[in-house]
Each structure stands twice: as structure tokens, then as C-alpha cells.
């Protein structure tokens, strides 16, 4: 029963309370790493791991954390988890860790994480905190994946490295008809514009989200 009762913890951040499009958190990494779909997916998984685990750890410790140093404690927990993610990537996905480079370290400063620790995990039981962490990371991840999808498709004509639109040099597929990749999609400003379009569509569908 507890499973279904708390399902809104997962579903809310996916749409109507999305951390990126509604709360406008975690924008920096959403712009920086979304030039490729693969990097977006890995970043989403890494944030999901850090936020899910971090929320559980903070929640388990919520009654013993001295309130005077709770922000520092949260920082240490998230830093430790991020270092572990970084080491694992370096050991098992080296090329990817080079692509993500500094942004893995920047998970520490992703405001979604500290925000959920402070707002949710410190006041809730571990299971609910875990769901909240996974939900918020998924909400962040889904935006990353959507942005990454369009940027890689329109910018490089590939998806996860596969040439879905044909070969731009050999002029096969759509390139045979004069289609060209839009290199501008690979630059950070287009990520912001893509994100803006997502926010626009979302608020158009659900006018209750529009603020005065």
C-alpha cells in the first residue's frame, strides 16, 4: 500500500513539479552536457544515483545530524557520492568520463541535490526520501534526455553515435536531398532555447503552471 500511496513522489517531479522546467534548478549542467544524448543519459543516471543514495543517507541520519553543521554534513555526503561516481566512471567508462570531465564534479553544486536534502530528506523517512530523490533525478534526467535528443539529432545527425539521418560526407539518406546539420545546435545557447521551448509547451498544456 505504501508503494502506491507515495507514487506521486515519483510522478510529480516528472511533470508538474519538474525541477528543471518549473523550479528552474540544475540549469548549468542541463546546458553544458546535452550536446550528445549519451552524455545526457549518463549524467541523468549519475544524478539519480547521487540523489537517491544521498537522500536515503541523509534521511537515515536525520535524527542524529547536529543542526548547526547540517549543511556541511550534506555537502560531505554528496561530495563523497560524487567522488565515487567519478572514480567508477574513470575505471569503467573512461572516454565518457573525459566527455563529462568537470561536470561530474559539478554534480556537487547541482542545486537540485542540496535542495532535496534540505527540503525533503531531513524531514522524511528513508523510503519516501528515496522515492523523492529518484523522482526528482528522473524529472531532471527526462529534460536532459529530451534536450540531448534534439541537439544531437539536429546538430550532428546522429543518435547515440548512430547515423540515423544518413552520412553527411557520403551524402546518403536525407543529406542526398540537400539537408545540412545545424552546427549551432551543438553550442550551449541552443540548449537554452530548446529548454525554453520545452517550458513553453509545458505551460501551454497546463495553464495552471503560469505565474503572474
Amino acid at each position, binding site marked *: 500500500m505504501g508503494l502506491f500511496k507515495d507514487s506521486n513522489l515519483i510522478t510529480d517531479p516528472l511533470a508538474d513539479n519538474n525541477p528543471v522546467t518549473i523550479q528552474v534548478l540544475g540549469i548549468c549542467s542541463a546546458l553544458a552536457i546535452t550536446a550528445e544524448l549519451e552524455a545526457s543519459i549518463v549524467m541523468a543516471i549519475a544524478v539519480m544515483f547521487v540523489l537517491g543514495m544521498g537522500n536515503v543517507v541523509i534521511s537515515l541520519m536525520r535524527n542524529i545530524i547536529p*543542526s548547526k553543521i547540517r549543511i556541511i554534513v550534506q555537502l560531505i555526503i554528496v561530495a563523497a557520492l560524487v567522488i565515487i561516481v567519478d572514480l567508477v566512471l574513470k575505471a569503467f567508462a573512461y572516454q565518457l568520463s573525459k566527455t563529462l570531465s568537470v561536470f561530474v564534479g559539478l554534480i556537487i553544486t547541482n542545486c537540485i541535490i542540496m535542495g532535496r536534502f534540505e527540503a525533503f530528506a531531513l524531514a522524511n523517512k528513508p523510503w519516501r526520501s528515496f522515492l523523492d530523490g529518484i523522482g526528482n533525478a528522473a524529472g531532471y534526467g527526462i529534460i536532459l534526455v529530451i534536450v540531448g535528443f534534439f541537439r544531437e539529432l539536429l546538430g550532428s545527425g546522429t543518435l547515440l553515435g548512430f547515423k540515423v539521418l544518413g552520412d553527411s560526407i557520403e551524402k546518403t539518406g536525407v543529406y542526398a536531398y540537400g539537408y545540412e546539420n545545424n552546427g549551432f545546435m551543438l553550442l550551449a545557447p541552443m540548449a537554452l532555447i530548446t529548454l525554453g521551448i520545452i517550458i513553453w509547451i509545458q505551460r501551454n498544456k497546463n495553464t495552471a503552471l503560469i505565474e503572474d
Partner: protein
Amino acid sequence: MEKRTDKNSYTILFAVVMVVVVGSVLAFAASALKPNIDENKRLEKQQNILYAMGVNDNTEGVVAMVSTDKVAEYFSKYIVKQLVIKGDDVRVDDEAYLIDIKKEQAAAKDASYERQLPLFLGKKDGKIFYIVPIRGKGLWDAIWAYIAMDENMIVQGIFFDHKGETPGLGANINQRFFMDDFIGEHLLNAKGEFVGIAISKSNADPINIDKTDNEVDAIAGATITGDGVAAMIISELKVYSSYFIHLKNN
């Protein structure tokens, strides 16, 4: 009543225990994963060396190393000899590519120390490449490169990388548009003296037709990184120039 967790003694104790626990967990993770990480770095070095001599999976405008499962095979196929130069002494060492340039540079600050200089001889389609690893300073942190040259010190291929240059500006030194400019560029002047390659902002030759001007076009907005690249090429390749002079005289 004051809560138990608000006491100073509790706070300090908590902080100490927490740091010890987290520190041990991280130390354990780091040492457990170190062999894998070191292996990845070793393969990356081999990939970079091969990249410089033109063994890569490049497509138009994209940097692509040979895949990690092929790199060991290609490395033994294309790199025919690895040398270590120390003063006038040149010896063959199959692990020369593992020499830590950073440590050698630091040790060489002591004038009595004679630096070990690694040099790789690659052979592809009957052509000999002399590949040299170099390392220097960019704007924020280390930059390094693998340069493949022919016996006249004309650049045949180059691979730059960096630790933390500004994304979009200095970080672009590892992009094709910058690296490919170096191909064919001379490191010696017309008289055969070593001058290096300047990264020029006032270049009269921005599309780089003149390969003998010892200049390539700079990246806009990356002045200090570019200066670092030029300084690195001059100081680090100069130490090799006596080897190349020697090579020519024989």
C-alpha cells in the same frame, strides 16, 4: 531543554566520526579502482601517440582515437621503436611511453639532473614518424601534446589535450580546426635553426598556406592558452633538437 544533538561536544564528535568514516570509504574505493584507472590512462597514452602519427578513426572535423580493444595491437604494429634520450646516450626502452614527463620536468629543475627524454619511432606506409610527448602550462592548468615529426622536424601530426582550459575557448586546442593547422608546419627556420611554432594573432596567413612561416593562427579568446602552447613547443622540443641534428648528420 536543549536537544542532545545541539550540544557542542556532540557536534564535534559527530564531525570527527563522520570525516573518519567518509574518508575511509573514499580511500577504499580509490585504491580498489586504481588498477582499472591506471590501465585506462596507459591505453589513452597509446591512443594519443598513434593519433599523432595519423593512426586514428577520424572522420570529417571529428577527433576519433582508435578503439581501446585495438590500441594494443596497433601500438605494437606501428610503433617500431621506443627510445629514451639522456644527454648523448640513446637507449631502446619498450616502456618509454610510461615515462612521467611531469616528474622529469620537475627533476630537471635541479641543473645536475639529466632529463630522460622519450621518443617514439612510428612507421606507417614506409614513412618514419618521430613522436615526442611534451607538456606545459595553459591558462588554468596543464596542457600537453604528442607531436609526430619527420626527420627535418616538420610536423606530421599533433594531438593536444588539456586538464582544465576554458570550455569553448582554450579548451578548443583539442579540436581538429586548431590541431590540423600544425600539419606540415616547420619547426626549423630557413637556416635550419630551431625556432618552434608561434601561435599568432596578427597572422597574415590565417588559412595557413605558408607552412614555413613558423606560425599558426591563434584561437580568438584563448590568448594565454595559445601562448602556453607556443612556449611549450619551444621549450620542450628544443631539448630534442640536438637529436634531430645528430640524425641528419648520419
